[in-house]
């Protein structure tokens, strides 16, 4: 079952026709200005410079040739890893601050990847710091490592809390291993992960009471404390002040809950001053519905329509208890939203044209983005059965309005039709210039992996492939 539009050029801006009541939004006059990867790269460079700067005090404070004994060498390595770990911890927390400028520069998808990579590095660095210092000090004092642990815990100020911080970090790192994480309930995992703020607090003291480079009042110590203050300020701003300002400003409420299919609902939201809400199609918010059963849970959902100044909409597949509760939301329910975030938008395109591949309920961000992509895009919508196809009337209308080719590909993954189509050759036949397009992918992990493989073999450069991942 394929369906294609190639005509309907000309009618694209301003003069929008309504289709089916509220489901079709007026088409924004133009595609959003591009946001290149410049911000992300700049930030990467800044962070690397910071890393070098964090080791600089050690370098300047250690006379050449002073590391004459193995103990001194090991201790020095422990100090370096300590400085690096202290710095990485700050970067790690900063990544999670949801500071609007970071969301804008890096975006949720990349932030999540950075967070994971930095997290693993941080854990290894902290463990290295601890072991090197223990071995070095034990050697200096001529005692066993176990006795050294006792000395550090007993005689050193702030060292107990530092050990506790390390323990929490190991626990958080361990539960973040994907297989283990899946086995845990999300809420428990989330709580554990939130406790990592304690690491910042508990690890703080020992750096200044015992850090050879941070002891002395002076520029290094002041700078290090300033970094802490900045990061805490960023977290406060991104997690508390900015959301507070957002919600006080827009005052979002549930307007209506509509069934899209047997197991999918759309929630319409209204608020104040929505005309000034800067949001791009494809971005997501973290939603907290303030009712008795739901207020304590916050879940990310993409908006399923671009900004139109009057309402927002999310389209949600009912899969768990929380999403089941959402069906019973009363109009007027207050909603606490954090966002918008994400780089899965038309503004992050690198090429003129785009290919969109959606699977099942993964259509929602793509549906919103479709309103903002330049004409000439192509959309492949994979669904298992015709009943799984969502928002098809809007898609048909948008395809016509935005001069977009649209194919519904129905069937199981192993059916010959979808299998042929989702191969490198199939994609090239359908979209001959696929290698010169941005490809936006959203759907179940299996489909995403299969598509990325096929696309790479069809010659699409990696940076042109955009994935929607909210997972953290």
């Amino acid at each position, binding site marked *: 079952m394929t369906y294609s539009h190639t005509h309907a050029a000309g009618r694209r801006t301003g003069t929008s026709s309504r289709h089916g009541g509220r489901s079709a939004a007026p088409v924004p006059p133009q595609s959003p200005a591009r946001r290149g990867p410049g911000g992300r790269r700049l930030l990467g460079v800044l962070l690397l410079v910071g890393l070098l700067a964090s*080791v600089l005090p*050690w*370098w300047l404070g*250690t*006379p*050449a*040739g*002073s*590391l*004459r*004994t193995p*103990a*001194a*060498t090991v*201790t*020095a*390595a422990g100090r*370096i*890893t300590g400085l*690096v770990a202290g710095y990485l911890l700050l970067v790690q927390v900063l990544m999670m601050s949801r500071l609007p400028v970071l969301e804008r520069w890096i975006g949720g998808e990349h932030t999540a*990847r950075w967070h*994971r*990579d*930095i*997290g*693993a*590095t941080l854990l*290894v*660095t902290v463990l*290295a710091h601890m072991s090197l210092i223990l071995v*070095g*000090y034990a050697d*200096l004092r001529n005692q066993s490592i176990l006795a050294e642990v006792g000395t550090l815990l007993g005689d050193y100020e702030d060292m107990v809390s530092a050990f506790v911080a390390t323990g929490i970090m190991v626990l958080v790192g361990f539960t973040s291993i994907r297989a283990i994480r899946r086995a845990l309930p999300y809420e428990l995992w989330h709580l554990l992960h939130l406790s990592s703020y304690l690491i910042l607090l508990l690890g703080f003291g020992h750096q*200044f*009471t015992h850090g*050879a*480079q*941070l*002891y*002395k*009042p*002076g520029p290094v110590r002041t700078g290090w404390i300033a970094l802490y203050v900045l990061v805490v300020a960023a977290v406060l701003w991104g997690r508390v002040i900015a959301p507070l300002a957002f919600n006080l400003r827009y005052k979002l409420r549930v307007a209506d809950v509509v069934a899209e299919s047997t197991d999918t609902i759309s929630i319409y939201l209204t608020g104040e001053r929505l005309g000034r809400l800067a949001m791009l199609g494809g971005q997501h918010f973290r939603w907290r519905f303030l009712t008795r059963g739901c207020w304590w849970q916050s879940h990310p959902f993409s908006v399923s329509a671009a900004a139109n100044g009057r309402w927002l909409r999310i389209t949600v597949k009912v899969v768990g208890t929380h999403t089941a509760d959402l069906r019973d939301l009363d109009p007027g329910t207050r909603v606490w939203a954090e966002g918008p975030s994400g780089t899965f938008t038309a503004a992050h395109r690198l090429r003129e044209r785009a290919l969109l591949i959606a699977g099942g309920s993964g259509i929602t961000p793509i549906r919103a983005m479709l309103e903002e992509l330049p004409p000439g895009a192509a959309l492949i919508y994979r669904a298992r059965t015709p009943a799984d196809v969502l928002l098809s009337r809007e898609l048909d209308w948008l395809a016509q309005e935005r001069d977009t080719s649209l194919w519904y590909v129905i069937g199981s993954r192993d059916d010959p039709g979808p299998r042929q189509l989702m191969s490198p050759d199939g994609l090239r036949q359908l979209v001959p210039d696929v290698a010169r397009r941005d490809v936006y992918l959203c759907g179940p992990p299996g489909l995403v992996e299969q598509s990325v493989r096929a696309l790479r073999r069809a010659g699409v450069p990696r940076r042109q492939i955009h994935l929607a991942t909210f997972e953290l």
Partner: protein
Amino acid sequence: MRRALLAITGLAASTTALVVFKGSPGATQVAQNLPTAQPVNPTAPGADPSADPAAPGTDPAGEVATPSKTADAPVSPKPGKTTARPSGTKTTTKAPSTPRTTKAPQPTTRRVTGNGFDNEYGYVQVQIVVSGNRIVEAVALSLPSGGESDIHSGDVRDRYDGSGGEVVQKQNANLNTVSGATETSNSYKQSLRSAIEQAF
């Protein structure tokens, strides 16, 4: 994950590189010690022969110093000979190596720098001023610094250093440990001991 592995490997490699670079034998520091140590033997009247070859220098310093001493003055190992030297003529030859002590009226005044020692708080190195067979002054060239270390190092300095400190009073390295600064006191004593060994 692949990037995390890369980052970890990179950090490990650069930490090792940094440590190796800083740890590369401080040839310059060792060399500085030699000229001041050399003229010691001929003039020290009551030198202790056992101290000389023993110089347990932790490293190249000891190895370099020992052969140079023997090559320089084959007589020096014998303590009895030292008195024969007319010290008056010696002063002029020694002057270049000890320019800062020229003020002192005694011709045999010289500075000897001990080996440096690390402890967990920092680097400790002691220099003594020897006149004849007496230590007349002790100076810590380097003590741990920063935060509490500043306080403890200050205590150590107050107790040991100077021309009226414990070093000068006792004339040996068996100093009382400064409370609260055990590690630094011990390193100070080690460095002092090596300086005394070089000087006498």
